[in-house]
């Protein structure tokens, strides 16, 4: 084995109870971590312990359990902050990445985007970082600019023609990055890694360029597919916001994070009102609490926050550079094997051919077989893959197909599982012949 990372795969696998599960007599081969990751024992235990031994509402009581619960939430916030190089007050707990993006749209977008402006996104976006901007642009009359992708699913950076069209009261301009960027662009909302193709746009270079060409532009990164897989330092990214979900990074579902620069967040108005987000309340109005409470109305998912803290501990112990290195080896191996199937005419692969430019998503179709049918046959062998449009319909259909099969990898997957997947992909067409 060449320079195999610091990852002890057997030890890791033993930490994930669900991996012991059999699916109709087969070992579970879980290749859908892009949709949601599995959870290690330590995360499950942290949440269970919390409910068994500490459960009480936070910021509400002077009694021991409430104080302890509050401390545990603060601790978890601190861990998440340290994990991404942020200050604790810049960590807003949300339900998921989608809610983070919506928070930016409601709190910042509605104040700052008007009819003369443009919002820039890419064709790689998940629906959660596309639809909010479509709606905002439709409402305000702003133009939605979309960076197109090439045949490999990489963003087109220069040249090409622009396509301008208007539909359902939405003005759209589709083209290359450099053609679309000018002073009208007030917001750049972009994914850090495509959930379909694994494409990882060169954020640093794009953000650098856009800040020169449109000074004052705000930048929102959809980090949902990034943060589980690599070291993130939000300050170095040069963005204003970074949104992600807990459940894709070994944490529970129902908890997510919006990081925002303190300077930016402190000028934003809350978009949800209620308990815990207020300063002083009178019968006629209220003042807003400081960060981060201002954006966290109501009782949060306390156990979820604690679970996310445990997930961060788990990943930190492995080391995100080790995680990235191990997954790179997996995706490289998977790509190699899938390219053999492609040469044989068995499958069509989508996404960048170069593994340096992609995260751990492998999308493909078994030639002549609908994605759902392929996934169903693979399921009969215990393999869990996703099929469909992956919440990115415009991207998937731009490859001339209606659906794709997607295998996504994480730290508990192995090369042996990839071999098994490849051998069972060979079985798929036989069912339909």
């Amino acid at each position, binding site marked *: 084995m060449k320079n195999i990372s610091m990852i002890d795969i057997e030890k890791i696998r033993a930490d994930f109870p669900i991996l012991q599960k059999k699916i109709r007599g087969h070992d579970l081969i879980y290749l859908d971590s892009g949709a949601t990751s599995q959870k290690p024992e330590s995360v499950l235990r942290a949440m269970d312990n919390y409910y068994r031994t500490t459960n009480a509402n936070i910021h509400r009581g002077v009694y021991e359990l409430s104080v302890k619960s509050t401390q545990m939430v603060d601790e978890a916030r601190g861990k998440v902050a340290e994990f991404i190089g942020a200050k604790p007050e810049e960590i807003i707990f949300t339900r998921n990445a989608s809610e983070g993006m919506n928070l930016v749209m409601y709190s910042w977008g509605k104040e700052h985007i008007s009819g003369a402006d443009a919002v820039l996104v890419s064709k790689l976006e998940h629906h959660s970082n596309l639809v909010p901007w479509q709606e905002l642009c439709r409402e305000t009359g702003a133009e939605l600019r979309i960076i197109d992708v090439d045949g490999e699913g990489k963003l087109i950076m220069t040249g090409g023609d622009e396509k301008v069209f208007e539909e359902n009261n939405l003005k759209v301009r589709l083209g290359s990055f450099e053609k679309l960027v000018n002073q009208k662009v007030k917001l750049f909302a972009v994914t850090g890694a495509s959930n379909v193709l694994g494409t990882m746009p060169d954020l640093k270079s794009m953000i650098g360029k856009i800040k020169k060409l449109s000074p004052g532009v705000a930048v929102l990164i959809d980090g949902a597919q990034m943060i589980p897989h690599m070291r993130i330092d939000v300050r170095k990214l040069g963005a204003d916001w970074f949104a992600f979900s807990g459940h894709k990074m070994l944490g529970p579902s129902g908890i997510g994070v919006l990081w925002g620069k303190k300077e930016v967040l402190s000028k934003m108005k809350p978009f949800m009102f209620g308990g815990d987000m207020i300063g002083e309340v009178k019968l006629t109005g209220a003042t807003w609490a400081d960060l981060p409470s201002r954006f966290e109305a109501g009782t949060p998912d306390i156990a979820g926050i604690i679970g996310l803290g445990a997930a961060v501990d788990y990943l930190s112990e492995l080391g995100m550079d080790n995680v990235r290195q191990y997954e790179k080896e997996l995706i490289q191996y998977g790509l190699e094997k899938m390219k053999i199937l492609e040469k044989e005419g068995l499958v069509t692969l989508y996404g960048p051919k170069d593994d340096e430019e992609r995260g751990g998503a492998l999308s493909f179709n078994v030639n002549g077989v*609908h*994605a*759902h*049918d392929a996934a*169903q*046959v693979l399921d*009969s062998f215990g393999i869990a893959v996703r*099929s*469909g*449009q992956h919440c990115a*319909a415009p991207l*998937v*259909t731009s490859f001339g197909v*209606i*659906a794709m099969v997607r295998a996504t990898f994480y730290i508990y997957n192995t090369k042996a599982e990839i071999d098994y997947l490849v051998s069972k992909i060979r079985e798929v067409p036989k*069912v*339909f012949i």
Partner: protein
Amino acid sequence: MDYREEIIDHYKNPRNFGEMEGADLSLTEANASCGDVIKIFLKIEGEKIEKMMWQGVGCAISTAAASMLSEKVVGMDRDEIVGLGLGGVTAMLGGEINAGRMKCATLAYNGLIKLLSTNE
């Protein structure tokens, strides 16, 4: 769930597939989760379906379901088709459809119900 021989047969040789000239009713139904789209054409005689034809791209389940349905509904009226229900569609396909594929299995059926309801 296995892909029964009958499903594979209807998938490979879909019945009543194609556009219908002079249809009394037609409608396009889509499955947003996977992109499958189906267009249904009906010839109506009195209250009853005289002929159903359909066109579309889809998976084996949605294709077989549309094909089987196009044979089954001949001579039936709206109430009889509503009476089939999801259970009837599942039974038609052999009785075992996993919940994740119900949208595939019922694409044509839901389209048909919608089409007949717009006719009231």
